[in-house]
């Protein structure tokens, strides 16, 4: 454990230095992300009609706990319904988060192998798993911060509403992160041995991205096989739960007809999320270790 914190410290310092040294790149990343998402929303807006745009002197955002259906005659544009727009933005950002975390283990690993840094990590007495864990924790926290800023900016622009629950939000973010970490370890293990799977992993990352974007409870009401498959994927339950909390305010304490995200009732997303965490993390780390050993046997560890 001490080793993990030492490596974590090294990673935090490295990441901080790079962020500080390349602050312009970090800033432009957020601006480009913001611009891209806004362009997407404007695209939806133009589909919904100009009347979808909220008036400039509209009152400050109010807490909405139930999604109201648009009145008859009003186009179903996204910005006519800020809650819906915010839901998509949140989905988009969760998708980016999933895309980024799994990417740390795929393209990130390939890049490190090409740069020769991976060999040095393999030569660290703390082991590759500890090194990667620390690296992804730092990468994950970075992504959460930059995504958080972006999400807040967009929600503010759209005059949408975001809820924050001091218990539910951190717990769900942590579980989502652990879940993705486990999945990332599994994919990363494959990339250690079969370097070319890194390219295929882009498809997997895009699937996760799409799923996070469109995940909602309705998806889980289809055929049982499809439902089981969706529950198995690491972002479905995480995205649904995060949307419950951030968009609908279903935190620990809720009032009225809205139930807490932790309530033990169908579709049990929170509990599937915990189960997923345990399974993916266990499976991921075991797979990574097995593949690391196999890679050493093949002589490809640290090489690209």
């Amino acid at each position, binding site marked *: 454990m001490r*080793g993990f914190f*030492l*490596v974590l*410290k*090294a990673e935090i*310092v*490295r990441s901080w*230095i*790079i962020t500080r*040294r*390349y602050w312009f790149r970090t800033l432009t990343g957020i601006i480009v992300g913001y611009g891209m998402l806004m362009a997407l929303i404007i695209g939806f807006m133009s589909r919904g009609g100009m009347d979808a745009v909220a008036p400039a002197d509209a009152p400050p955002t109010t807490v909405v706990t139930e999604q109201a259906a648009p009145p008859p005659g009003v186009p179903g544009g996204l910005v006519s319904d800020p809650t819906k727009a915010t839901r998509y933005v949140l989905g988009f950002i969760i998708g980016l988060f999933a895309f980024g975390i799994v990417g740390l283990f795929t393209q990130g690993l390939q890049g490190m192998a090409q*740069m*020769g*840094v991976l*060999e*040095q*990590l*393999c*030569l*660290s*007495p*703390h*082991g590759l798993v500890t*090194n990667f864990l620390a690296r992804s924790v730092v990468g994950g926290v970075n992504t959460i911060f930059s995504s958080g800023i972006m999400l807040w900016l967009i929600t503010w622009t759209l005059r949408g509403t975001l809820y924050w629950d001091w218990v539910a939000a951190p717990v769900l973010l942590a579980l989502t992160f652990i879940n993705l970490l486990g999945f990332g370890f599994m994919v990363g293990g494959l990339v250690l041995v079969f370097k070319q799977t890194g390219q295929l992993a882009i498809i997997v990352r895009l699937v996760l991205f799409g799923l996070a974007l469109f995940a909602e409870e309705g998806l889980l009401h289809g055929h049982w096989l499809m439902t089981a498959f969706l529950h198995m994927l690491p972002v479905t339950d995480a995205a649904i739960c995060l949307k419950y909390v951030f968009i609908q305010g279903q935190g620990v304490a809720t009032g009225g007809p809205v139930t807490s995200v932790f309530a033990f009732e169908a579709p049990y997303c929170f509990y599937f999320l915990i189960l997923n965490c345990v399974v993916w993390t266990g499976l991921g780390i075991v797979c990574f270790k097995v593949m690391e*050993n196999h890679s*050493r*046997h*093949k*002589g490809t*560890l*640290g090489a690209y």
Partner: protein
Amino acid sequence: MSAQPLVELDHVAKTFYTRHFLHLDEETRRRRLYARRTVHAARDISFTIQPGEVFGLLGPNGAGKTTAVKMISGLVRPDGGAVYVDGLDVERRRRQVLRQIGVVLEGTRTSIWPLTPLENLAYYGNLKDVRGAELKDRSHRLLDFIGLRDKKNVQVRRLSRGEKQKLAICIALIADPRIILLDEPTTGLDVQSSRAIKDRILEMTRELGKCVLVTTHDMAVAQELCDRIGIINKGELVTCRPTAELLDLFSEQIFAFKLDRAPAAAEFQDMPGVIAVEAENGEEGPALALTVVREAAGRSEALYEVIARLRRGGYQLRSINQRQQTLENVFLQLTTDLRESPAPSGRETK
């Protein structure tokens, strides 16, 4: 030298299986047919490295030098045999072993380019369990030692190839390892950088008591640095001897007799103890180059007989020289001529 070697390879074997596309004709190209190839990177290799010793591993491309380094550092697992570092089995006690070794593999790629040398050392120091004041102090000392004091706050991407290589050596030394493995440390460097790195390697062993394994193509580097040299070819250790002994391996066989006129080589062909005769007429005048048997008595007899024949033939003998071998010649002879025949010593001699 102590009885306990710091590094020991005990009958190590490693085979890789690779695929390569045939591309023989249009058909094989179109169908992307490939052949499976077996590459023996190590065949029953055994050698040891003692504390304070610089051991050189020489061999042509693809001979298995880097694989040997990677097996010692635990990056590649051997198929057979065992590798011990300070008595610890690398396979079973990898973590403890990694605390004792510093490795430079393709040195210019080791460091993180957006960081400065000082920041790189801080990062890799933490990764190797060095921290606090000790880390700071050691980083500065190493940068001074290697000659990067002026560049300690310059981003690595702005450093020259030689400076990156020096930094890689510092990174390998940050945890103060007892064993340093350097894979081609001077390849692609200019004369000054190469000289500086060679000097630092010698200092590390002579003054700091480290044990160093160097793989290189550069015979001059090996000849200058190494106390002992192992020559590896197609995964086989062709020989493993002290450098001086290796250089003597062939030098005692060749003698050049400088004469007043060109000799007739045929006159000396049938002499006992003479293996080969060559008449030379170079810039230094005519000479007779004789390759004689290595066995002392037979060699002396042959030399006396040659001198007697030269006198009888009316030749005026100006000088007799024993030809000094270069490591390059020895290397070429061992990896080409002796490849087909049994090696002079497949096992190491101390």
